[in-house]
């Protein structure tokens, strides 16, 4: 149980007396779904239904922002989505709000599962995909261009299929970052949300008009990543990754490790979000191993983060940065924040996976963000 302290005021003459009152906040418990058989499509469907509402697998090409090779390779990306925007009986005239959520390095779409329930309860909708080489997605390179293309294409497919995005006349299903998207029109308010590495993906999409045309959003939210702090921590990151166990006896052990090390602080969330981070060792090996070869992505980290703060400040959308501590701001963002260039929200008592540690708190913050700018879905 966690409590919010609410101050109640009582006037006595012209003096105020204040007494704190404890207001209990609803517990969140998520059922843990473990699937050991079934096709990928079936698995994604069941997982999607359990945590978000629906799930599907999107097949998309592997392209960079400069070169189209849609025909030469393909990625299968699970995409999960839910909320009123995806309801069968949706009032087409009513406005919808969809958060397009991009997970962090080594994570999966289920990173947003604990938060999804809170968003949907507030009448908001969510789309979250597994990026290449993460979760249930097929393997692929981890360069920024591939990540961007994967995020845009997978989200677009789901949004277009549900009439939340109307493709432009020149665009086709297999359009990619290189080919560009002509004149797609959103039929809902889209807000990009990215955690950590996903925050870099989301920011780069929002900052580039050509990429933005693929996912025309009104707002951008970045969760706990800042260029200066990321680059400063880069040296130690390799050692941290090397110090992780190479394998675990079981999925439960992997969950327990994340909690015991203090990396994650919410046992209910970790039980949901950690399983997709590991896969069976296979090849006669025992236990489970890490799904994503994070250590080998080290040569990409610079390209993920260099220039990110400047880009973030230049994004024309409304912006929200959610951090686990004020120390995490770099100088550029600190100046920008004190000049009122974006909203900063600090969530107390959480770690790097703040949307998993405090899913209700982060959902409230996102709700406040879209409410302030008048993008709330209209009442049905």
């Amino acid at each position, binding site marked *: 149980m966690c409590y919010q302290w609410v101050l109640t005021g009582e006037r006595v003459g012209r003096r105020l007396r204040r007494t704190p009152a404890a207001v209990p906040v609803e517990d969140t418990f998520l059922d843990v779904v473990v699937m050991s058989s079934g096709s990928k499509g079936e698995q994604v469907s069941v997982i999607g239904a359990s945590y978000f509402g629906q799930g599907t697998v999107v097949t998309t090409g592997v392209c960079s922002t400069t070169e189209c090779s849609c025909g030469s390779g393909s990625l299968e990306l699970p995409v999960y989505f839910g909320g009123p925007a995806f309801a069968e009986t949706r009032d087409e005239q009513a406005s919808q709000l969809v958060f397009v959520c991009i997970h962090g390095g080594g994570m999966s779409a289920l990173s947003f599962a604990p938060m999804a329930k809170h968003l949907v309860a507030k009448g908001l909708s969510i789309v979250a995909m597994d990026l290449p080489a993460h979760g249930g997605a097929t393997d692929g390179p981890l360069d920024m261009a591939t990540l961007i293309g994967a995020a845009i294409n997978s989200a677009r497919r789901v949004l277009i299929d549900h009439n939340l995005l109307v493709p432009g006349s020149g665009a086709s299903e297999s359009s990619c970052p290189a080919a560009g998207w002509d004149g797609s029109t959103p039929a809902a308010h889209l807000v990009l949300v990215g955690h*950590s590495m996903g925050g870099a993906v989301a920011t780069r999409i929002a900052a580039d008009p050509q990429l933005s045309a693929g996912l025309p959003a009104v707002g951008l939210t970045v969760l706990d990543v800042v260029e200066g702090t990321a680059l400063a921590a880069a040296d130690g990151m390799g050692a941290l990754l090397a110090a992780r166990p190479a394998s675990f006896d079981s999925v439960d052990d992997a969950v327990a490790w994340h909690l015991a090390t203090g*990396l994650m602080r919410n046992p209910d969330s970790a039980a949901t979000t950690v399983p997709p981070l590991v896969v069976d060792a296979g090849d006669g090996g025992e236990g489970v191993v890490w799904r994503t070869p994070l250590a080998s992505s080290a040569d990409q980290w610079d390209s993920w983060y260099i220039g990110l703060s400047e880009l973030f400040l230049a994004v024309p959308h409304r912006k929200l940065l959610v951090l*686990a501590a004020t120390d*995490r701001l770099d100088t550029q963002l600190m*100046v920008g924040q004190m*000049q*009122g*260039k974006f909203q900063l929200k600090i969530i107390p008592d959480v770690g790097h996976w703040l949307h998993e540690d405090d899913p209700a708190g982060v959902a409230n913050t996102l709700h406040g963000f879209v409410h302030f700018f008048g993008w709330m879905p209209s009442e049905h």
Partner: protein
Amino acid sequence: MDDVDKCLEKLKRCELLSQATIKDICTRVIDVLLDESNVCEVDAPVTVVGDVHGQFYDLLEIFQIGGECPDTRYLFLGDYVDRGHFNLETITLLTCLKLRWPDRITLLRGNHESRQITQVYGFYKEVVQKYGSADVWSYFCEVFDYLPLSAIIAGKIFCVHGGLSPAVLSVDQIKLIDRFREPPSEGVFADLLWSDPSDRDGFNLSQRNAGHLFGKDTVERFLHVNGLSTVLRAHQLCMEGYQIHFDGLLATVWSAPNYCYRCGNVASICEIDASLNREFNVFSAAPEDRREVPSGQAKQVPDYFL
């Protein structure tokens, strides 16, 4: 007021007062603040100070440059706490000065003078660290509830922490606000503490997700309706210490040099003489040898960023 003089001597040496003393001072200063209007009338000459944010040694620098209180009359525009390393010493010193010379120093409320903000941006944590409990924080939060919202210098210069509100055309409307509480997240009260000037005309929603952006036309209208000449406010970091907007109709004064000990900016105080001429006295951070380095500041280095 001998006891307050003794407190001031201690504070200028960056020594903390006892919890009981702080409680007493806060109770007494509330009585002083109770009588102040939401719109204080301040005489010229006066020196106006912007955000300080717990940068105690830079506050001492301000008194060196601008003159000691009560010799110089001061008007502070809020944001005394949070972000800096000596929030307690800063706010305690200013509170004692207000108690000792109530007519020579005016303290307005900034957006950081709130329970919600100080719990997250450093003041609350510092109090618990230095006193072992949050009581002193709650004493000061009560003082914050009584700080006035704005001031007018010599009937001509309107001073506020943030800026204008779409709901306020006349200064009299500000007088009607019930200020004796935690600032709400929207409305006139929030606007006065959070708004920023902008190149776009009219009022627009602020990127901060609080307050509004207001254009030159709104300032012109406000000044005209109220018979004022300019607006002076703080709230936004200025790398050069101050910034003049709208052809001189509005100015921002920023008084925390090298903000958060790393932004590399200079700061300023706005010295207004008896004829209402404004001069921005620009200064940099107090030199290293005149600063104390705070002890026990364990910097939280984030491990993961992927």
